[in-house]
């Protein structure tokens, strides 16, 4: 039976690739799972060092990618679901690809799986992970999951009943931190320890009140959305001490520098990707690696050379001009992208491409929580585009952007060229698309992301 399930899965993968009906990442899993429902559990059980599951709203793809690279650097053979196909069936496909048709000879010895919040109950039951890493919980794709508290409860309940499993939580996120109570195994935390990067942007605070008692939380430092050093004055709930932390953080449009405090060692890290959110991603990956027993050298080496995950950050070339593409999918992510872009305080040329297909989230209300009013966008020029380009242009108009400084061009290709046209020679443009808009851009323009690291280095010298 298992033989048949794996064979069918392999044939389906081949068929999808040959007929170009898809990338071959979910169909094989779907078919194999139909034949033997236990297949994921059985294959997962044979991974010598087990499975690490990464979930949360923002950063799970980049965090997973960093963790896979750290583990590989340490000498593990890592299995993961890299195609953004992050449902259980995508995982089944990844597992099936890695074994031969007899179900033996699994090459990988450890797995890192990125799992959607809503899929967590199925994922923990089937994969029985050694560790679950929860990056953060922001409002996102509410049309898919309902409300944030309900998402948290779904993840929390998925942690119950596994006393061997380590739960890795973001100490700075009060909602994530509150999930410790569900865990029956060890719980460790990661967090930021910094006084210099506090934000006073008031929008996109998703979790302002104490989970335990409802009292408004007090923040000594607030770093990003509702992430920060928090405590409750009413019931004494407070941020837990992190096992791994980051301090002395400095971000610019191309690089992030910080000090990473591991349990036994401090590292100075300089990553060629920008933004505090990527510091959080690195912190999360380093914590999961530490829990797995990886030493400082592999962590340090990997973070210095890391890249953002597929589509999260790309460099494209359009008519001889370079445009940096940063995926946005919710207000916190968009605010972080803008804060990275505007970290040098200079006006920019920015494209904002808003689609409302299922993969983007069908509700575009969230753009009203992008804190344009907070960033120093005066003098910047904008191009709004996408299926809901009018909504994005309207957001810019109501943020007080001068009429001559924003333009609506519904067609994504024309809008991208329009943005390129605005750029002076050697000036870098910025493009913030939602998911399906990003795919369209990738399909139509030359992606040159390998140059991103060099740009980071050039900028560093220039600073």
């Amino acid at each position, binding site marked *: 039976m298992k033989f048949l399930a794996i064979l069918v899965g392999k044939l389906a993968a081949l068929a999808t690739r040959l007929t170009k009906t898809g990338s071959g990442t979910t169909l094989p899993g779907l078919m194999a799972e139909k034949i033997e429902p236990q297949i994921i559990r059985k294959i997962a059980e044979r991974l010598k060092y087990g499975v690490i599951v990464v979930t949360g709203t923002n950063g799970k793809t980049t965090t997973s990618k960093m963790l896979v690279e750290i583990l590989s650097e340490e000498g593990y053979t890592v299995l993961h679901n890299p195609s953004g196909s992050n449902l259980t069936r995508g995982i089944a496909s990844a597992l099936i690809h890695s074994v031969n048709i007899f179900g033996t000879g699994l090459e990988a010895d450890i797995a890192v799986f990125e799992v959607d919040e809503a899929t967590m109950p199925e994922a923990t039951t089937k994969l029985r992970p050694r560790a679950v890493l929860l990056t953060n919980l922001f409002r996102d794709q509410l049309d898919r999951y309902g*409300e944030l508290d309900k998402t948290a409860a779904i993840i929390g309940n998925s942690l119950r009943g596994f006393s061997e499993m380590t739960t890795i939580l973001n100490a700075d996120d009060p909602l994530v931190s509150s999930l410790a109570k569900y865990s029956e195994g060890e719980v460790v935390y990661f967090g930021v320890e910094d006084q210099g990067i506090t934000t006073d942007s008031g929008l996109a605070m998703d979790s302002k009140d104490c989970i335990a008692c409802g009292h408004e939380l007090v923040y000594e430092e607030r770093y990003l959305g509702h992430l920060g050093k928090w405590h409750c004055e009413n019931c004494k709930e407070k941020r837990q001490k992190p096992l791994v932390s980051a301090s002395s953080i400095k971000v610019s449009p191309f690089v992030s520098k910080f000090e990473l405090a591991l349990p036994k060692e401090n590292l100075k890290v300089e990553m060629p990707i920008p933004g505090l959110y990527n510091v959080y991603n690195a912190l999360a990956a380093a914590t999961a690696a530490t829990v797995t027993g990886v030493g400082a050298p592999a962590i340090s080496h990997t973070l210095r050379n890391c890249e953002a995950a597929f589509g999260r950050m790309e460099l494209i070339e359009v008519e001889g001009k370079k445009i940096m593409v940063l995926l946005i999918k919710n207000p916190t992510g968009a605010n972080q992208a803008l804060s990275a872009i505007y970290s040098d305080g200079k006006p920019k040329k920015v494209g904002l491409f808003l689609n409302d297909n299922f993969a983007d989230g069908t509700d575009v209300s969230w753009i009203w*929580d992008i804190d344009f009013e907070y960033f120093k966008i005066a003098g910047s020029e904008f191009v709004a585009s996408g299926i809901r380009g009018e909504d994005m242009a309207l957001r810019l108009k109501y943020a007080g952007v001068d009429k001559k400084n924003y333009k609506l061009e519904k067609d994504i290709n024309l809008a991208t060229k329009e943005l390129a046209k605005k750029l002076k020679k050697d000036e870098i443009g910025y493009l913030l698309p939602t998911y399906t808009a990003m795919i369209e851009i990738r399909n139509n323009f030359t992606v040159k992301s390998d140059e991103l690291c060099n740009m980071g280095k050039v900028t560093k010298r220039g600073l």
Partner: protein
Amino acid sequence: MSYKVKLYHLYPDAMNLYGDMGNVIALAKRCQWRDIEFEVVDVKIGDSVDFSDADIIYMGGGQDRGQKIIQNDLAKRKTEIQGWIESGVVSLTICGGFQLFGKYFKTAEGEEIRGIEVFDTVTTAGDKRLIGNVVVDVSAATAKWAQKFRFKNLENPTATLVGFENHSGLTKLGPNTEPLGTVVSGYGNLGDGGYEGGWYKNAIGTYLHGSLLPKNPWLADHMIAVALMNRYGSPIPLDNLDDKLEEAAHKAAIERAKTAKTLSI
């Protein structure tokens, strides 16, 4: 003479889900573009607030947790807010805010969250989440408003509202609250594609996020016009604004409501 509109924003922290802040931004900008001073007073739990200078009372949507957190504080303000609505103060409440301006909201767990009975409505949790783009025909309501206020922006005979709904609560209207409109596409108050929202005097409640007012500028202008009339005792003509982009966004939302799939999960 310079004019002024003062908005009281109920619980901006606990009740701001799905970008409802955009409604306050829209009112502020549409006043400022006309040189009308716009002031916002944030009302938070425990604040001692006198609403006697309020032209507009506003509350956005929130999660069940947000609603539970504010219910006791809101209850203390019940008589005062009811009194001002009774005297004609303008009000807009969205989603969870709309529910709490009714009699009660009974959650899926059977818990009853008390409202302040501005609207003659009761809300009970349904077993599905109703999610998607919405178009509402509000011409019946605007016809009545037009009889009372002869504002130019109410003259459009096919007045529509566009927005995005995401709720599991089902809201039933009693005899003292009229529906805001009938659903052209979407689920509406009861999930059956029947009617949407509710209104009483100058208080409007709706499930529409989007944000609502930027894409429905005529409603924002109606609220501003009534607020000015209340404050200054006679109609104050509003300058025309260039609303081409607003109208394009309104049309795009109507188109999208025809093509995009809705969800009930």
